[in-house]
């Protein structure tokens, strides 16, 4: 069915206001979009890894969710999802569940790329019928902006600070979306907050309604961690895509599709210069960092193009 923006936006809100995410946090946008992607009549169970979103959206006695919600720990959201799936199957077998219930798991890059990776990989391998949404803000924001395996090279994080002899994080970002694709699961996608969020909506909807495991990686800027004015979120997302730092693509049953190809691929500094975490890269003498960042983006982009062509 063709996407109808007005119709989708007119659905009842499933992620309520009054949560305590920071002003301008990308995670709130994702929570709304992923629950909006549910068919209105369907029930959902939200499973959440510990992190900013958890402490902000279910702070006793206030839940921002209108669907059932469970949080256990940092590293195990997918395994909890597996348990919920088993319960759904069992209740269906017993004839105790009529509703269509979808499992939406959500975690930050800490709970997804790093500490929760084993449990995520396990649930995917087992073919658990859930959709994992990662709000990837590229560092451990809840504990105060420490580097994660998702933090890009040269970013200033509190455990990889730029300094007299340091230019920020030494390693490149882990390519989790490709690792998830390598699991051979039915649906993997990467997106961010672009345009009218149609891309995110359609990917979320496809992921949720694809039987079996699905993984959606959403670049989700963090104003505090990335050091930019809160109002610039959409611009930063746009630049991430236009520079090919964060390509929008999906892998459906093993076939790779590029959803957007910039007409003029912009240089990587157009993305970097908007954010204080890369400020040191623009100091005289550090030109090489931008060159290296560009080389890496170019290589990854070519690699991706070879997969989609």
């Amino acid at each position: 069915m063709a996407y109808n923006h007005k119709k989708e936006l007119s659905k009842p809100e499933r992620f309520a206001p009054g949560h305590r995410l920071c002003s301008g946090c990308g995670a709130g946008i994702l929570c709304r979009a992923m629950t909006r992607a549910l068919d209105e009549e369907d029930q959902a169970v939200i499973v959440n890894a510990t992190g900013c979103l958890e402490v902000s959206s279910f702070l006793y006695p206030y839940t921002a969710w209108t669907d059932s919600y469970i949080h256990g720990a940092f590293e195990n959201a997918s395994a909890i999802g597996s348990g919920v799936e088993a319960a759904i199957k069992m209740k269906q077998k017993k004839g105790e569940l009529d509703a269509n219930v979808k499992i939406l798991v959500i975690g930050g890059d800490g709970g997804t790329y790093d500490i929760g990776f084993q449990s995520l990989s396990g649930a995917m391998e087992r073919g658990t019928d859930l959709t994992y949404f990662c709000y990837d803000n590229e560092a451990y924001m809840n504990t105060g902006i420490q580097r994660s395996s998702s933090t890009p090279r040269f970013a200033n994080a509190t455990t990889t600070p730029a300094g007299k002899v340091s230019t920020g994080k030494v390693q490149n970002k882990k390519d989790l979306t490709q690792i998830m694709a390598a699991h051979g699961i039915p649906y993997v996608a990467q997106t961010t907050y672009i345009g009218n969020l149609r891309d995110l909506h359609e990917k979320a909807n496809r992921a949720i309604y694809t039987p079996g495991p699905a993984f959606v990686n959403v670049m989700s800027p963090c104003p505090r961690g990335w050091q930019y004015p809160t109002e610039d979120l959409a611009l930063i997302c746009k630049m991430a895509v236009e520079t090919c730092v964060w390509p929008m693509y999906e892998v459906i049953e093993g076939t790779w599709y590029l959803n957007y190809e910039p007409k003029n691929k912009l240089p990587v500094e157009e993305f970097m210069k908007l954010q204080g975490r890369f400020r040191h890269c623009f100091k005289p003498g550090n030109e090489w960092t931008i060159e290296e960042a560009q080389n890496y983006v170019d290589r990854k982009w070519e690699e991706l193009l070879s997969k989609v062509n």
Partner: protein
Amino acid sequence: MSIKDRMSGNEAIAYAMKQIEPDVFAAFPITPSTEIPQYFAQYVADGKVSTEFVTVESEHSSMSACMGAQAAGCRAVTATSSAGLAFMYEMLYVVASARLPVTLACVNRALTGPININNDHSDSMGARDSGWIQLYAENNQEAYDNYLQAMRIAERPDVRLPIMICQDGFITSHAVENILLETDEKVKAFVGTYEPENYLLNPDMPLAVGPYDTCPYYMEHKVQQAQAMKNAKQAILDVAADFERTFGRRYGLIEEYCMEDAEAALVLIGSTAGTARACIDEMRREGKKVGLIKIRSFRPFPAEEIAKALSGVRAAAVMDKSEGFSGCGGPVYAETCAACITLPKVPKLIDVVYGLGGRDCRMEDIRRVYDHLYEILETGETGPVYLHMGQRSNEKEVL
């Protein structure tokens, strides 16, 4: 009528699980509990149970999957040992604080390091403060019977706590012994169904589980949890009474043997009780007034019952099958001493740490402990109270 059979402790647990048919079993293998999911997988493969069997990638995930399933409104179970239980520790606390009555079959094994696959209680003793009910079995029969009672205790609305059914690795889990089994119908009727008030899949009311609990609320939730553990004591007794009415076998919080007139006693947990009873029988024939207290429920800890049972005793040895590394004795000793502080006349109490990593404990070892208690009584000198037994040594050890 009960059915006479013979099987190992592991098979007895798997058999009880088959009869109960829990909704979800999340499993990851670890010696010596591995046979439990193996037996169960075969039941699943043969269509004997309708349980959802989830083969997770770690113990942390098996407890996490149990949490998800139980919160969703299902009965969830798992089994583990040693490092597997240690890997679950974080989730043991989370499941207990979320007040989800998950059932865990713990086959006790020494904790690594160095790695050792044999029995002691260091795994579950380490989890003693996690908020789980812990029942310990002496043999395969008790393992089976405890398992049949587990869910009734754990799921009671005034309890709502997870429960660990413990048995000694290899000694009980792998030894094939005679056992009385009950029929599927009677077991199902006894255990009943799980009817939580709130659950994730309730179509009429969404449920949020596992909040960030700030300072104004956390302590109140902990007091609720503490109250639930106090309530568990009565629940264990009530369920045991119904079990006795239904199946004829009697259980309590502790089991006393020859304690009526005992002057020297042992306090211990698990399979060593059988060895101790044989020793007591022998010594009683010699006119020695020796007795035994076997702890069935370590959590909740039956402090009053133990104190009462020890009130007439002049000297007692608490046998700890785990090293607590407190520098002054194991956990069973510490709690027994604390229990006895209310007695008008506290017996002389010593701690004997024994059987670590599967070190054998024979009748003559138990006899040495009783003999030592008599020495204390004769000399009036307690001497060192924190002893190890069974280790090689260059020095002359007390035991």
